[in-house]
């Protein structure tokens, strides 16, 4: 219904239509879901330490002022609550999201450590994109915890502030600013002030130019810098989008199907690029292409019906009978 009403340019409509088509093809809802034994989300995800909220927290009297003491107590409680997730970069626990009775995310728990690169696989409708939506603030979960860098509650922020915190996202369908040149696409993405007035009075700095130059090189777009993004090929748009992610310099990159529609050579090239990026950033990659996932050589999480089905090395996951069942059917 919504595709034709979409106020955005036509492209998005097509994207949604494709997604809907995917939904139509997918096996029907929860009633055909595997029995209880096959919902091991908690077994798969590292369980955080039990919350020590019940224990009384004693804090030495910090100052004669009662408010200071109160704040110290608060701080101590917060430290205690942080507990196990303090070291994590991304922490999802017991997240649920339902769309009109369709459980897109079902008690999902997932932890990504700092500096880690994680691949996420799963059949259509497994909730991969919805999970990304929740992390980036596009969708609010019905329940559950989503924390970034230990103590930032992502459910309380919107897309722009989450992006400013250092979470970058590449969409399934490459979305670049088609009316702008490649270079301007990158410049808009560069980390820095996001104030409207500063944008109005902005002057290009040498540092900025260097950075753009560097990214153009990394993504091999130097000779296309003055081309309109609309005129790029599909694969080039994917790369431009990755370049925009780099320009943002986020702590965590969420990359949704980066090699969809790419040739084998391009795929390999992309894998190389992502590995390079992962040296400095944490990355979560959603991908269908098993060759690509293998080429990444990282820990794999398999989602199914909005929950973690299996987690480990690719070999471990792909030999998991439940995963095989989900992918190949009964």
């Amino acid at each position, binding site marked *: 219904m919504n595709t034709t009403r979409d106020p*955005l340019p036509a492209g998005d409509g097509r994207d949604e239509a494709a997604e809907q088509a995917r939904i139509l093809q997918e096996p029907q809802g929860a009633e055909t879901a595997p029995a209880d034994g096959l919902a091991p989300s908690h077994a798969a995800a590292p369980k955080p330490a039990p919350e020590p909220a019940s224990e009384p927290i004693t804090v030495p009297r910090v100052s004669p002022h009662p408010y200071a003491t109160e704040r110290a107590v608060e701080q101590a409680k917060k430290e205690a609550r942080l507990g196990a997730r303090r070291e994590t970069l991304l922490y999802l626990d017991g997240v649920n999201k339902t769309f009109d009775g369709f459980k897109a995310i079902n008690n999902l728990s997932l932890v990504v450590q700092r500096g880690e690169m994680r691949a996420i696989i799963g059949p259509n409708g497994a909730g991969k994109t919805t999970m990304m939506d929740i992390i980036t603030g596009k969708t609010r979960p019905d329940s559950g915890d989503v924390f970034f860098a230990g103590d930032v509650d992502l459910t309380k922020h919107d897309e722009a502030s989450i*992006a400013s915190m250092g979470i*970058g996202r590449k969409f399934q369908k490459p979305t*670049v*600013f088609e*009316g702008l040149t490649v270079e301007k*696409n990158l410049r808009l993405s560069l980390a820095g002030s*996001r104030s409207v007035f500063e*944008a109005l009075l902005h002057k290009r700095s040498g540092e900025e130019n260097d950075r753009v130059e560097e990214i153009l090189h990394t993504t091999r777009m130097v000779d296309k810098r003055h081309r309109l993004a609309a005129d790029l090929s599909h694969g080039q748009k994917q790369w431009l989008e990755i370049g925009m992610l780099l320009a943002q310099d986020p702590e965590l990159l969420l990359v949704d199907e980066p090699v969809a529609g790419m040739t084998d050579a391009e795929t390999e090239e992309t894998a190389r690029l992502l590995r390079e990026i992962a040296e400095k950033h944490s990355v979560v990659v959603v991908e269908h292409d098993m060759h690509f996932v293998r080429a990444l050589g990282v820990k794999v999480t398999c989602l199914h019906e909005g929950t973690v089905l299996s987690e480990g090395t690719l070999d471990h996951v792909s030999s998991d009978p439940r995963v095989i069942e989900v992918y190949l059917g009964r």
Partner: protein
Amino acid sequence: MIIRYLGARVWILVAALVAAAILVPLANLALPANHPLHVPSYLVPLIGKYVCYAMLALALDLVWGHLGILSLGHGAFFALGGYAMGMYLMRQIGARGVYGNPELPDFMVFLNWQELPWYWYGFDQFWFAALMVMVVPGLLGFVFGYFAFRSRVTGVYLSIITQAMTYALLLAFFRNDMGFGGNNGLTDFKDILGYPIQADTTRAALFAASCIALALAVLCVGAIIRSKLGDLMIAVRDAESRTRFIGWRPEYVKLFAFTLSAVMAGIAGALYVPQVGIINPGEFAPVNSIEIVVWAAVGGRGTLLGPVIGALLVNYGKSVFTGLAPEYWLFVLGGLFVVVTIFLPRGIVGTIDHGWDALKARRRAKNREKGESEGTGNDPNLAASPAE
């Protein structure tokens, strides 16, 4: 440096406007009536009116062409600016009205009002009226935009509620007890800043002021669209949600442009009223607002030059047509809407630009074949076709 920054096109337009601001009044006032270059007095306010419309079209295009916000309510900002100026002109009448009341405008005397409503205070001062010309439309644009953009009302929904906004104002201003003259609006102005409003010299000065205001508006819009903010606006137009995911807040971008655009429309309205001598609620009619859109569309939206040219052309056509066969003007206007959207989606300037760019691209490709290094290239941004 600045000249290069804005591009030659902007400067040509500005130069033309400044020239018009000087030459047209000269040709009207200094040349004898039988001189072939003499501009008759009736033409001066007429062209001045077109110039105000051009500024209005430019204001609309700032949000439509560059941000993709199709406002069907820009006539409201224009009319509010016009009313603010009209209120000043009303107070200038003083005791020369039909009822000779030095304090109250005629229509208030007629309605048996005893004292000036509070919102008329201060309008006897030009500086206050001039401030309100910008503040009132700007404030409405800001408040309206704040609510609309914050809750992410986009596309046709936004268009429809902007239309509802101007419709609501239309109904409100028709009411006598609003204190804006009801159905008849504000008229019978006598003088502005102490000069008689009907005099040729005053009209020439108003004309010149309109041209200068338009030139400043062109410079302002040109500077914005060439800045990083201009790129950001294009980005928001093409992929609004993407800008969010790289940390921008498109609602602020829109709010800034929408408010600025409302202020510009208000100024255009304020310059318009003394030249046509009346402002009434009809200016709020939704049809008027949609007409602005067709001016911008004919000229070519998002091209800076286009809306100005479109507004001048369409309104000239309207004047000619309503002189020849008034009953057929609506056919022509309706036809324009259809033809432009189907056959000329880039508008006149956009189509020319597009052809020019294609030509240049071909030449560049040829140059590259010869092994020459690629030049810096022109920024294709201005000529960028709107997202389709």
